[in-house]
């Protein structure tokens, strides 16, 4: 499928229902090589279902997924991980009562014969990973620091560094800044920039446009199961984007009718639809 080879992952015409509820309605979504995509949407917009399909947790009712141009068949969580798709979950998938080095290698321990852990190697590797991907030079933090004692931003850093170390090509950040202070959010945004610097791609899922805008290359807006807007950052200012987002949210809610926001087939239509909501 040469036509899909230009991007890292492409999801084509994805439909998904749970019972009678249509959660995704013909979503077309892609992430390019070395691209950070901000995926914005309100609660119930379908963000997490879309991501769960991408990570193999759910199977779409209809639609196709292409990874580096190749159509994926028999897709599963294990396959997604093998391909290099890593999710940094909201709860961060960390073990709080254990050290950083233990967490970095959780489930993927460096072992010698008979399955015994090479503690020395894991600690040395962790030190290198912390320097390389997290820029950690703080004397307060060491490889032996307990994750539970770290700040929210630092925990995200460990999870992102872990994903980068294991050569993930696509890192999915699920609400990475929710509940974090301003300075902690800045730290996380720094880690997201590291992903880009390392030549990898990321999907940054959030409610907050102010968090994702500074680091994203492209912003995708999902609303009630459809992509209603898709903008290259270079093509739109933050103020304009906020205005558009506000309209999408407001129109839907005010009318209380999902049909009010149409399902665009492409970006131009999406632009047109949003423009039509402008006062």
């Amino acid at each position, binding site marked *: 499928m040469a036509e899909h080879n230009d991007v890292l992952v492409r999801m084509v015409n994805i439909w998904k229902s749970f019972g009678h509820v249509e959660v995704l309605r013909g979503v077309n979504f892609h992430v390019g090589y070395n691209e950070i995509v901000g995926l914005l949407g309100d609660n119930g917009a379908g963000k997490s279902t879309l991501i769960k399909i991408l990570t193999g947790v759910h199977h779409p009712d209809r639609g196709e997924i292409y990874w580096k141009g190749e159509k994926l068949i028999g897709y599963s969580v294990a396959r997604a*991980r093998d391909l290099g798709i890593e*999710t940094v*979950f909201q*709860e*961060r*998938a*960390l*073990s*709080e*009562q*254990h*050290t950083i080095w*233990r967490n970095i290698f*959780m*489930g*993927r*321990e460096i*072992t010698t014969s*008979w*399955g*015994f*852990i090479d*503690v020395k190697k894991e600690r040395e590797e962790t030190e290198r990973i912390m320097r390389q991907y997290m820029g950690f030079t703080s004397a307060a933090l*060491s490889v*032996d*620091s*307990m994750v*539970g*004692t770290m700040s929210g931003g630092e925990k995200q850093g460990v999870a992102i560094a872990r994903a980068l170390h294991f050569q993930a090509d696509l890192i999915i950040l699920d609400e990475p800044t929710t509940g974090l202070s301003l300075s902690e959010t800045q730290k996380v945004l720094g880690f997201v920039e590291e992903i880009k610097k390392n030549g990898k791609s990321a999907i940054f899922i959030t409610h907050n446009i102010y968090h994702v805008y500074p680091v994203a290359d492209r912003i995708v807006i999902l609303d009630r199961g459809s992509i209603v807007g898709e903008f290259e950052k270079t093509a739109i200012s933050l103020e304009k984007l906020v205005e558009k987002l506000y309209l999408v949210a407001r129109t839907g809610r005010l009318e209380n009718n999902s049909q009010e926001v149409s399902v665009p087939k492409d970006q131009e239509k999406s632009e047109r639809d949003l423009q039509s909501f402008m006062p």
Partner: protein
Amino acid sequence: MARLRTAEHRSQISVLLVLFVIIALFMIGSPKTFLSSDIYAAFMSTIPFSMIMALSLTLIVISGEMDLSFPSIMGFCGYVFTHVFHATGSFPLALLSCILVGLGAGFLNGLLIVKLRLPSLVLTIGTQFFWYGVTQVLSGGLGKTLVPTKASTLYYLFVGRIGGRFPAQILWAILIGFIIWLVLNRHRFGAHIYFTGDNPASARVMGVNVDRVKMIVFTQMGGFAAFAGVLASLEVLYFWPTLGQGYLLKTIAAVFLGGTPVEGGVGTVFGTFIGAIIIGILEAGIIAMGMTGFWTQLVYGLIIVVSIAIHSALRRRT
């Protein structure tokens, strides 16, 4: 250095201090008994049974689960050992069957907990009654001698007296403690036990097979309960159908006293080792000090509550 590391060290030091204080009190209260080596030889013969089970139970508690059925598995496996030994006259065969039955009973616990998503606390109350009932039905409530086992060298290997004085079973307890420590602290399976207990959802996401971990920890508990049953029966050269009863709370107390919290995720083998010693020496010490047996339970309760409060306070400081 990690604050957890120091917290764990502090926890281990605190339980060691409790042991030293108790021994010092006993030495002051009853110097004749506690300054003689006889009492320590006696402790080394009686403590290993519950110590082995407490060490094994530590893995279950760290994984965030609980087992209340091990005393009944111990009793049933004691029955299997005795029955097979009398039927075949073979010590190794009796031992093998007993251990296999123990592993099977433990595996059954794990399987039901994992596959049926049953809470371990409730399920093992059920299997505790079940295995105790099976033992009573099969044995008809009657005990049986194990004196003929003395003809086997294995008897001496398990519960003989080294140099005519040093009980072999304490060496087994130390060896088992070392193996469990090695697995828990140096093997990837041990790391997976900690991750499973701390945050099973995270562990799953990171590729830890949480269900498999739980099945294995319950299975090994059954195996070690069986082994403890053999040792306890051989020590008195008699199988009692009530074998195992009375070990439940003391064994669990040893784990908690050693600093492993009921929530799981953390805990140490060393702590349980010392916890088992404390539990093991209390009763004899209290009586040797001239107090009546009525005091035993009271002192047990007091020491357990104080120790757990200390561990909890140390953990909060991190």
